[in-house]
């Protein structure tokens, strides 16, 4: 009697060692291993594990480590001053911790993701501007000061005028797809994370070939060619093909359209 055609989920469970839990019997497991198609899937799963094993994260940036150390000092009510992060431990309390190069306390990575060469005018969340006496040094704040918001409106007006006629290819475009790939799974699209608001926005700016109700695969705040925007990565209903849209934060203008795959 021939075994039924193996299913991917079943092979993945075999690959993960679930056989040992009794979810698969030994005879079936052997049949799966002997099947050429199954072996190909098992090899694909092994290649996937190899890809994952190769992506170990780099060491924590010194500035981030310094920020964490400062937060712990503040939490313990100790003064937070430069250099303490690398101060040697007093005798009898602890030894052996290699001092890290202390970065500026509270200096976090830039938050808005710049796309294109003119990204210096990034206007986004100020990172780590809380004073040393604050309870969480360096923790990002999402409040945008009124003055910045006003400046943003001016920039938006310019951006709207520039792009009212539709997206244009410029120096930012080649970086768009790369940024979009990195945005998959990110949920930082602000109000456009909400499906109904996003649909209304997409109806308003009407990017060609994109359904307003397309599912959101990822999104983030960006600076596109010097202008603040919201990058949306959207499902298209086609395997391996995702739509990429950048709109201004008020969704009054379409700044760019692109796609991943296809």
């Amino acid at each position: 009697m021939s075994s039924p055609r193996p299913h991917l989920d079943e092979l993945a469970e075999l690959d993960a060692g679930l056989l040992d839990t009794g979810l698969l019997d030994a005879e079936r497991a052997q049949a799966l291993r002997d099947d050429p198609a199954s072996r190909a899937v098992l090899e694909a799963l092994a290649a996937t594990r190899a890809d994952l094993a190769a992506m170990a994260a780099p060491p924590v940036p010194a500035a981030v480590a310094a920020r964490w150390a400062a937060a712990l000092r503040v939490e313990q009510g100790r003064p937070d001053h430069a250099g303490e992060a690398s101060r040697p431990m007093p005798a009898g309390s602890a030894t052996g911790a290699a001092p890290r190069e202390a970065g500026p306390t509270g200096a976090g990575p830039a938050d808005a993701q710049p796309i294109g060469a003119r990204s210096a005018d990034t206007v986004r969340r100020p990172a780590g501007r809380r004073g040393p006496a604050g309870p969480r040094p360096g923790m990002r704040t999402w409040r945008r000061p009124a003055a910045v918001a006003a400046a943003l409106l001016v920039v938006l007006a310019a951006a709207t005028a520039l792009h009212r006629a539709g997206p244009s290819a410029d120096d930012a475009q080649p970086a768009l797809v790369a940024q979009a790939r990195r945005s998959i799974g990110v949920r930082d699209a602000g109000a456009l994370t909400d499906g109904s608001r996003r649909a209304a926005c997409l109806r308003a700016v009407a990017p060609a070939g994109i359904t307003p109700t397309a599912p959101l695969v990822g999104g983030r705040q960006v600076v596109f060619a010097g202008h603040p925007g919201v990058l949306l990565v959207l499902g298209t209903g086609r395997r391996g093909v995702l739509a990429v849209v950048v709109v201004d934060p008020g969704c009054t203008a379409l700044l760019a359209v692109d796609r991943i795959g296809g």
Partner: protein
Amino acid sequence: MTRLAPEVPDDAQLLAAHRAGDPHAFGVLAERHFDRLWGVALRTLGHPDDAADAVQEALVAALRRADSYRGEASVSTWLCRIVVNGCIDRLRRARPTVPLPDHAQPRPDPAGAVTTRLAVDAALLTLPPEQRVAIVLVDVQGWPVAEVAQLLEVPVGTVKSRCARGRSRLAALLGHLREDG
């Protein structure tokens, strides 16, 4: 003449020293695990700012509740559990899971077309939080499944199952699974 190496306190000793009032012990303990915690948070959340915030919150939480450590797991596992729980909370808070459209599910391409490969980190971010955390800990960080089960406080079979589902989805997204008849 015998030269004695300076004694280096282990994690449990540092935590005990912290509980006893040593103001520097917890900082030393935490710093030992900075890279590991960073790796878990960065790969789970996918963004360095979010990862930095998550680890900072977790470290402060661990500092505050050091007295709650009972020694059932290693200090390292305890710290990592706090980070992982914080990451999962963030993912749930920030984004109710929006699954990829059905075409991204791991199944053979009926047209036999070349599958569009996503970068590994991008593909990882498409997984639901529980699967993602299991994959990050087991496949990226290389933790033993049993230790991950202890960290996540779930049965070993659950960890394996989450890894299995996650890997099968990733295999398709990464282009390793193709139509082969």
